[in-house]
């Protein structure tokens, strides 16, 4: 089939990346009649292609291009070339994600105002009124079919959840449930109900979990207004003498470079690749990279304060059976500085298969302390901690000119140091998580260090004042009117919640804005 859009067609909106942000934006614009070319570095995989085997699936879907790390986070030591866990495929990381879909709490939109000056943190308020987000959150929940919203039932609790719930209640937590999940609890949206297969992280073979790969993207394509080119890896964004962006250069499946012209460019490559692309697009007019007059491109990298708690019991749990993230405790998500830190955190069940448990329980660990834990794998329960981390200017993505990717471009270096607030929060969460399991008879508990980052945020952040950030409240870059950022890198601060529902809500909102501005002739 001939491509619907020519390379020379400069009326199209070009979207780079087709994950939570890019995939949704592409469909939303296509539904409004806007012509879109979405360029995706990865290949196309659908539920029938997903592999329910942890490492094989990882090899199939993960972004494995050259990356380096620095900083005091343990990931830099344990997984020095794998700072993040991100997918390279049509649908992006929404193929891997677990589906937890939470709204920000009101106070989290205004972290600077509500938390005050936190030393070493580069806090800022989002340039968005939380009330403005209400409708967009509802639209996002309906799109994703989020349970416990819009009249949708919650999912049933699996073994791992039952242990977690009993422990939570035993220590007095009130707000524990199977959570709000973008997983069908009943057939809907042309997709079946969850069959509790337990491989949510490897791509849901039933399609019960929402992913843009088999919802928004094909729906956008069905309009005739969206062309998705897979294995199209964007290398740089071009601009004209007036400073406006004019198109993007990408490497196609055969490694040949192509130039796609554009009216508007939206960057949605996740929080490592998006700033890297802006930096790699430096020119004589923009020597520090595109949209970087603030110097904030690549800075304020956030990854959520994370960690896990696993526990062993004297009887079987079989945590791998059922949804990977099967429940949540929200009692600690409030902002309550009396605990010794600002912001809050969520506790969410998590199950890993034996291969991943061996890799992530205590990276680098060996000997009987380690192996006796795995000997009790069948009797293990687990939870993940996700809390708000502090944006820091020095936590950043930079270009590492000593290491090149397969296209000869400098690889991104991911630098991260924990902020004292992150450490205080993590220690609190470890204590609470261990207490949950000990209250129901755990014989051994494991405060497990953070994995490679799954929530990557903040590296092109929103700000009211162009001095403080890269994009405005609509994700439009302060410097270049027809250049947008459409993924998690827009986040001004991270909140305690898993980010994807907010990424999706912002993408729906951005589509409204772009379409309206195009109609007004402003773009």
């Amino acid at each position, binding site marked *: 089939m001939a491509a619907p859009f020519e390379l020379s067609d400069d009326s199209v909106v070009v979207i780079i990346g087709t994950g939570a942000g890019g995939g949704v934006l592409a469909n939303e614009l296509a539904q409004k009649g806007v012509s879109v070319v979405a360029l995706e570095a990865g290949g196309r995989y659908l539920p029938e292609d997903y592999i329910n*085997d942890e490492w094989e699936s990882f090899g199939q879907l993960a972004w494995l291009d050259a990356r380096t790390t620095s900083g005091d986070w343990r990931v830099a030591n344990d997984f020095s070339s794998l700072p993040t866990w991100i997918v390279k495929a049509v649908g992006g990381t929404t193929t891997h994600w677990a589906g937890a879909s939470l709204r920000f709490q009101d106070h989290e939109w205004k972290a600077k105002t509500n938390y005050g000056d936190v030393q070493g943190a580069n806090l800022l308020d989002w340039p968005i009124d939380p009330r403005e987000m209400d409708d967009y959150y509802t639209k996002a929940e309906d799109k994703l079919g989020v349970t416990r919203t819009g009249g949708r039932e919650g999912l049933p609790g699996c*073994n791992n959840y039952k*242990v977690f719930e009993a422990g939570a209640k035993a220590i007095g937590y009130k707000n524990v449930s199977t959570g709000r999940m973008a997983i069908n609890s009943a057939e809907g949206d042309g997709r079946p109900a969850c069959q509790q*297969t337990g491989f949510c992280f490897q791509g849901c073979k039933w399609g019960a979990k929402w992913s843009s790969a088999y919802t928004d993207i094909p729906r956008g394509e069905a309009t005739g207004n969206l062309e998705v080119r897979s294995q199209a890896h964007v290398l740089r964004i071009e601009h004209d003498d007036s400073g406006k962006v004019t198109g993007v250069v990408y490497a196609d499946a055969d490694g040949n470079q192509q130039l796609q012209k554009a009216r508007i460019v939206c960057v949605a490559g996740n929080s490592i690749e998006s700033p890297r692309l802006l930096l790699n697009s430096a020119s004589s007019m923009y020597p520090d990279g595109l949209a970087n007059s603030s110097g904030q491109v690549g800075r304020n990298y956030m990854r959520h304060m994370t960690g896990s708690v696993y526990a062993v019991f004297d009887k079987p749990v*079989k945590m791998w*059976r059922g949804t990977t993230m099967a429940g949540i405790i929200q009692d600690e998500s409030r902002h309550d500085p009396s605990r010794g830190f600002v912001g809050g955190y969520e506790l969410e069940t998590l199950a890993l298969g*034996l291969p991943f448990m*061996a890799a992530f329980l205590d990276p680098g660990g060996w000997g009987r302390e380690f192996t006796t834990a*795995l000997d009790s794998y069948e009797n293990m329960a687990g939870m993940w901690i996700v809390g708000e981390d502090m944006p820091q200017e020095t936590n950043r993505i930079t270009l590492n000119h000593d290491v090149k990717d397969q296209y000869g471009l400098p690889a991104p270096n991911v630098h991260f140091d924990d902020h004292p607030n992150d450490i205080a929060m993590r220690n609190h969460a470890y204590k609470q998580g261990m207490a949950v399991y000990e209250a129901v008879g755990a014989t051994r508990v494991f405060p497990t260090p953070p994995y490679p980052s799954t929530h990557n945020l903040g590296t092109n952040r929103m700000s009211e004042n162009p001095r403080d950030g890269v994009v405005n409240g609509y994700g439009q870059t302060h410097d270049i009117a027809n250049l947008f950022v459409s993924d998690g890198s827009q986040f001004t601060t991270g909140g305690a919640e898993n980010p994807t529902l907010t990424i999706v809500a912002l993408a729906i909102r951005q589509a409204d804005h772009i379409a309206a501005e195009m109609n007004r002739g402003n773009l």
Partner: protein
Amino acid sequence: MLKQKATLTRRQLLSGSASIGTAFVIGIGYVAGSSAAWAMEVTHLKPQTMATLIQMARDIYPHDHVADEFYAAAVKGYDTEEQADMIETGIAGLDAAAQGKGFANYAETGWERHRVDILRNMENSPFFQTIRSGLVTGLYNQKAVWPLFGYEGESYSQGGYIDRGFDDINWI
């Protein structure tokens, strides 16, 4: 390939072979379990080196209910021309360390703790780290090992766990 029982009888195995420690016997071009439950051809490494490497693998990730053949399978990939030197040198280092403590060699120290002491002293060496990190997938990603830990692997082909015990916990 690891050969299963039938291929070698214990008698055949022991004729013309030497034992190393109590767990392994070695002959020309092979390493086998003393029980003759498994045998493995080695082409590029000395059989004794491979036997010691298998012991080292067990000492790094000891699971008493996991038989040697799975550890053998986990390190078999080192028996190549490119890796042979690195392994021979590394294992010679282990033996030298054992001899420094008055043992005949690494595999023949008796108590596990003596070998673990040797490993602790070298845990930051590239050799140790290569072997250890390789085992994380080499051992735990063997599908045949999973049932020994209770792990059931993929469930899609059986319709998931919706009707097969996703919530069957009965003690909580």
